[in-house]
């Protein structure tokens, strides 16, 4: 029989000891995979050479730092997660882990990733990694998320920084080119999250999170998605215009951006959940495709 113990703010299972799977789930592995991928491409695009061992260390630190930020987000939002269907099965709200363990795990990983980055890669990358983790945990999770519908617009910056961190691991500085990559992920974040919030609106309402559809309604959200997609398509062309991404990337950005725009315009007209889901899943494919083509074209150009 399952026994439970009530702590100050939630219930934990006494018959269960958290295993590796629970700790891994705290790291938000799906978010981490996107972070690793964009960071890898950022590293490929950066001018100059980096020793493979140092490159591996930098990507590892970025991945662990992103995981730590996700873990600290789950620690802080455990009560909110328990109220949302999408997040109720996470380790803390489901009672498989207590909050204190998650906090210790997150702080240990964050400290270790920044320290190792500073010691083995360079101080600029370590400072950027620390800024990213703090931005996600303090600015987004603690400050903005429960206060303003613009939470993911500003907070999205933390998800956009990894390519810049990886770039600085190679060059030791921050350039306009790396900021263009940040801009691309930054402008991609609102259409991505707002399309999800259109079909998770009840969840956000139940948890009291002021996402745009909850505060301003679904029509306004669809309008904002169109505006931000237009901006995103314009920003996606910057790497090509600035000359550090090739023509294949330019063509992909135009075609992919046009398809994205067509989808969000049909979402604006149709107003159904099916189209919102289509926009959400396409947005993931779109970002993977842009970065894959950008990195792939650059690698092929370097080899031949």
């Amino acid at each position: 029989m399952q026994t439970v113990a009530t702590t100050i703010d939630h219930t934990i299972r006494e018959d269960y000891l958290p295993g590796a799977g629970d700790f891994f789930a705290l790291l938000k592995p799906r978010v981490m995979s996107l972070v690793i991928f964009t960071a890898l491409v950022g590293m490929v695009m950066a001018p100059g050479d980096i020793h493979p061992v140092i490159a591996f260390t930098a990507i590892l630190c970025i991945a662990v730092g992103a995981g730590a930020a996700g873990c600290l987000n789950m620690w802080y939002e455990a009560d909110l997660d328990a109220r949302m269907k999408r997040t109720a099965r996470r380790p803390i709200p489901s009672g498989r882990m207590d909050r204190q363990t998650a906090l210790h795990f997150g702080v240990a990983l964050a400290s270790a990733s920044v320290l190792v980055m500073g010691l083995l890669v360079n101080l600029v990358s370590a400072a950027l990694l620390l800024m990213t983790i703090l931005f996600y945990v303090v600015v987004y999770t603690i400050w903005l998320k429960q206060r303003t519908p613009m939470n993911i617009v500003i907070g999205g910056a933390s998800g956009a920084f990894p390519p810049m961190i990886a770039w600085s691991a190679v060059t030791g500085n921050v350039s306009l080119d790396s900021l263009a990559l940040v801009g691309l992920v930054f402008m991609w974040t609102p259409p991505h999250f707002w399309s999800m919030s259109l079909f998770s609106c009840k969840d956000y309402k139940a948890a009291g999170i002021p996402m745009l559809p909850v505060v301003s309604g679904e029509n306004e959200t669809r309008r904002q998605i169109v505006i931000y997609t237009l901006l995103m398509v314009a920003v996606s062309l910057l790497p090509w215009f600035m000359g550090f991404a090739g023509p294949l990337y330019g063509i992909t950005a135009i075609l992919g951006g046009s398809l994205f725009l067509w989808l969000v315009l049909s979402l604006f007209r149709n107003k159904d959940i099916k189209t919102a889901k289509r926009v959400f899943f396409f947005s993931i494919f779109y970002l993977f495709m842009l970065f894959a083509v950008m990195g792939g074209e650059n690698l092929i150009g370097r080899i031949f």
Partner: protein
Amino acid sequence: MPLHEEHKKRAGRNYALAGILLALVVLFFVATLAKLSVI
């Protein structure tokens, strides 16, 4: 949870931690060699 199962899970967690620490030692060693241009 039966005691032996809890011990087994705790032992697994300790081995995982030892593995991570060992991997860090190896990483630091190899990265130092890379920085010194030995490899």
